[in-house]
C-alpha cells in the first residue's frame, strides 16, 4: 500500500549536522595536537590553559549571543556596541557613586547595582534591535548595523571617547578571581552561560520556538507562535549576553571604553558559522559554537608562541578551515544523497 512510506533519505545521512560536530571535534584535537607537538613546553601547560581561559569568555559569550539571533534567521552586529555601552553605564555609576576608600563590604551593594545597570542596558539595547526587526521589518543586518553605530555613538558621546577608569578596586578583584587559583571567574561564567543557553535551546519551549521561527517564519505564524515576541526576546537575550561580556571586559581592563573589542563582531559571526549555526536560520548548537571558540583560541594562542609567525595566519587558517569544512560537508552530503538514491532503487 502507498502509505507505507519509507523516508527518502536514510537517517544516517541526515545526521550530517551531528557529523559536523564530530568534524569540529577532530579539528580541535588536530589543532591541539599540532600545537602541543610544535610547542611542547609552552602550549599544553597549565599556565597556557589559564591564559586561554581568561581570554575567550568575553568574545565567546558574544558569539553565543550572535548565534542565537542567527538561529532565528537574523544576525546581531550590535553585540560589541551593546557590551561597551553597558560597561560604560556601569562604570559611570561606580565612579560616581562609590565613596572613595570605602571598605569592601560597603562597596559590594554598589557592585551589584552596577551589574544590574549593565544587564538592564543590554536588555534594552537588545529589545530595541528586536523591535526594529520584528515590528518595523528592517532587515536584521541593517537594523543591527544601525544599532551598532548608535550604541557605540552614545558610548563615545557620553565619554568623549575617554576610558572610564578609577573603578573601585573590588570590582576587578572580584572580576579577576580565580577559583582554586586556576579557573577564572569569566571562564566559570562562560560555562554557566553555555550550559544554560544550550539547555534553553534544546529543551525549552522558547528554544524550540526560535528554531522553528528560523526555519519558516510564515509557518511559525500559522502555528500560532508570536513571531515578534520571539524575535524581541531573542535579541534581548543577545543583549544581556553582550552586557555580561561587557562586564567581563570591564573587569579585565579595569576600565570601560567605547571601542574595546571592536574587531570582535566579525570574529563572532565567523565563530557562529564555523560552529555550525546555519546563517539561514533554524539549525545550530551551542556545543558547536563552543568547539569553534576553542579552535580559534588554540590557534590564536598557539600562533602567539611562534615569534616569527604573524598573528594573521590565524585568519588564514581560520578562513581556509571554514572553506574546507564547507566543501567537505558539501561533497559528503552529495555522496550520501547519491548512495541513498542508489539504495532506494535497488
Amino acid at each position: 500500500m502507498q502509505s507505507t512510506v519509507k523516508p527518502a533519505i536514510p537517517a544516517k545521512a541526515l545526521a550530517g549536522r551531528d557529523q559536523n560536530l564530530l568534524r569540529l571535534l577532530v579539528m580541535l584535537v588536530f589543532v591541539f595536537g599540532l600545537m602541543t607537538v610544535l610547542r611542547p613546553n609552552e602550549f599544553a601547560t597549565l599556565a597556557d590553559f589559564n591564559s586561554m581561559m581568561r581570554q575567550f569568555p568575553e568574545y565567546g559569550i558574544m558569539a553565543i549571543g550572535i548565534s542565537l539571533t542567527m538561529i532565528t534567521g537574523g544576525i546581531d552586529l550590535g553585540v560589541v556596541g551593546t557590551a561597551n555601552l553597558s560597561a560604560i553605564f556601569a562604570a559611570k555609576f561606580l565612579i560616581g557613586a562609590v565613596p572613595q576608600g570605602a571598605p569592601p563590604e560597603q562597596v559590594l551593594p554598589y557592585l551589584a547595582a552596577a551589574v544590574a545597570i549593565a544587564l538592564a542596558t543590554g536588555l534594552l539595547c537588545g529589545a530595541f534591535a528586536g523591535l526594529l526587526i520584528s515590528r518595523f521589518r528592517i532587515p536584521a543586518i541593517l537594523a543591527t548595523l544601525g544599532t551598532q553605530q548608535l550604541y557605540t555613538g552614545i558610548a563615545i558621546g557620553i565619554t568623549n571617547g575617554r576610558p572610564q577608569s578609577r573603578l573601585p578596586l573590588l570590582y576587578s578583584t572580584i572580576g579577576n578571581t580565580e577559583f582554586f587559583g586556576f579557573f577564572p571567574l569569566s571562564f566559570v561564567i562562560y560555562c554557566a552561560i553555555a550550559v544554560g543557553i544550550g539547555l534553553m535551546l534544546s529543551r525549552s519551549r522558547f528554544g524550540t520556538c526560535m528554531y522553528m521561527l528560523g526555519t519558516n517564519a510564515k509557518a511559525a505564524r500559522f502555528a500560532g507562535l508570536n513571531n515578534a515576541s520571539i524575535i524581541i526576546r531573542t535579541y534581548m537575550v543577545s543583549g544581556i549576553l553582550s552586557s555580561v561580556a561587557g562586564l567581563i571586559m570591564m573587569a579585565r581592563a579595569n576600565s570601560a571604553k567605547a571601542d574595546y573589542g571592536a574587531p570582535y563582531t566579525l570574529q563572532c559571526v565567523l565563530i557562529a558559522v564555523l560552529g555550525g549555526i546555519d546563517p539561514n536560520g533554524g539549525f545550530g548548537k551551542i556545543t558547536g559554537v563552543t568547539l569553534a571558540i576553542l579552535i580559534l583560541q588554540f590557534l590564536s594562542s598557539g600562533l602567539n608562541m611562534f615569534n616569527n609567525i604573524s598573528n594573521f595566519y590565524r585568519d588564514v587558517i581560520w578562513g581556509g578551515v571554514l572553506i574546507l569544512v564547507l566543501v567537505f560537508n558539501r561533497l559528503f552530503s552529495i555522496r550520501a544523497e547519491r548512495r541513498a538514491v542508489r539504495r532506494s532503487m535497488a
Partner: protein
Amino acid sequence: MAASILKVVGIAKSFGGVQALKGVSLEIDAGEIHCLAGENGSGKSTLIKVISGVHEPDAGSIEIVGRRLSRLSPMEAIALGIQVIYQDFSVFPNLSVMENLALNMELMDKRALMNWGRARAIAAHAVSLIGFEVDLDERVENLSVADRQLVAICRALLHDSKLIIMDEPTSALTKKEVKALFAVIKSLQSRGISILFVSHKLDEVFEISERFTILRNGENVAAGSTEELDHRTFAFHMTGREFAEASYKSDRAPGPPVLSVKGLSQVGSYEGISFDLAQGEILGITGLLGSGRTELVETLFGISSPDSGSIEIAGREVRMRSVKDAIALGIGYVPSDRLTEGLFLPQSIERNAVIGVLGRLCNSLGLLNRRAVAELMSKWIAELSIAAKDPSLPVKTLSGGNQQKVVLARWLASELSVLILNGPTMGVDIGAKYDIHALMRELASKGLAIIIVSDDLPEVLACASRILVMRDGAFIQELEPATTTESRLGELSTGVA
C-alpha cells in the same frame, strides 16, 4: 490516424521508497488532443516529468516521433518539440511579462545579447496567440495568478512544438479564458500539434479531448475514446470507488452557532460575508482562486483583520488581533500551502507536530518533558496512522498525505471549537485523502465545527453538510450537497452557466 508522436511503455519511477509510477503506458498521435486524468497523487505529474526529461525513469521506454530514447534531458525534450506548462508556471516573478515570454526563446537560439525590440515583438506575438491582454512591461509578480499562468501558456506556445503538455492549465481561469484557451488549442491542433491536456475536470475532458488516459495510484486504469466516457465511469476510474463516500450529515440537533459571522468585509478581498456554523457541522466553502476564500478564512484565524462586520464565538463578539488570539478562542487552521505555511520542512516530524502544544509539555522548570513529547507523538502516529518510522527525521521525508496528517495532529491536542481546513487534501494521495476525510467526519461527529475550503468539488460534495459558493469576494449561493451536483457547483463558482 497519423503515426504516434509519443509512445511511452511500462514507465516505472520511485522516489525514495515511494513508487510513483508502476509501469504506465501512454500513446499520443500527431494532431491529437489527449487527456490525461487522475486524482492528485495518481502519478500524472511524475509522468509528465519523465516525458519532458526532468526525471529519468527506473524502467520503461520512451519513443518520440518514432525515435526510441533511453535517456532524455530537458533540453533534448524541448529540441524534440515537447513543451510543458507546469502547474507552478516556472516564471520569473521579478522580471517583466515581456522578458518572461522572450527569454526562453532567446536562450534556445543561443543568443548572447538581449535585443529588446525583438523581445517585445516575440512577446507581442505570444500574447496575441490567445488574445491575452496584458501590459508587457509589468512585473510578473504584480499580475494575478490567472494572468501569470497565461504568461506561462503563451511562452510555451511560442516554441515550434510537436507536443504541448498542459498540467491542469485551467484551474485558475475564468470560463471566458478557458474558452479562449480551448480555441487556441483547437487552432494548434489544426496545425498538427498534439496536446496532452492534464485535468481532473470531466467537463473539460469532454469538451476538448478526443482520447483519454486515466491513472490511479501510478497505474493505467482506463484509456480510450472520450465519446465512450460518461460521468459515472470517469468518477469510478478516477477514485476506484463507486461513490464510496456518502455525503456527510450531522446527526446532532442543530444547536446555537459556535461561530457566527455577520457582514464581514475586507476591502479588495471579500464583502458582506455572513454565516453561522453549528457544532458538528462541516461547512464547505468553494470558489475559484482569487474569489476571496483564502482571505476570508485567514481573517477568521486572526491573520488579517476585517474592515467591517463582526465575528462571534459562542454568541460573544470577538476581536482577533493575532493568530494567538484565534487559537485562544479555540480556532485551528490548516493552511492551503502546506510547504510554505504549514510545515517546517527541514525540522523533525516531532517538532512539527508538537509546536502548537509545547507549553503543555514542559515541566515545572520550563524544560520540555521529552518523555511526554515522545508519548504524545507515538499516540498520534497510531491514531492518524502516520507512516513515520522515526519521528526525529525531517518532516520533508514524508509523503504529502502524511505531512498533512502531521499538520492536523498539531490541532488535535488543542481544545478546539472550530477547525478550518484550506485545501485539506491538495497534493495528497488517495489513501491518505480518505483517511483525512474520515478523520474530519469523526471530529465533526464528536462535536467540532469544521470549515473546509476547497475547489476539489467531489471532496466538498462528499464531506460538507452545507456548501457556500463564493465568487468575487461574496457568497452567492448556499447549497445542500444532497441536492446539488458537481457541474452546478462549477457553474456557480465560475459564474458561467
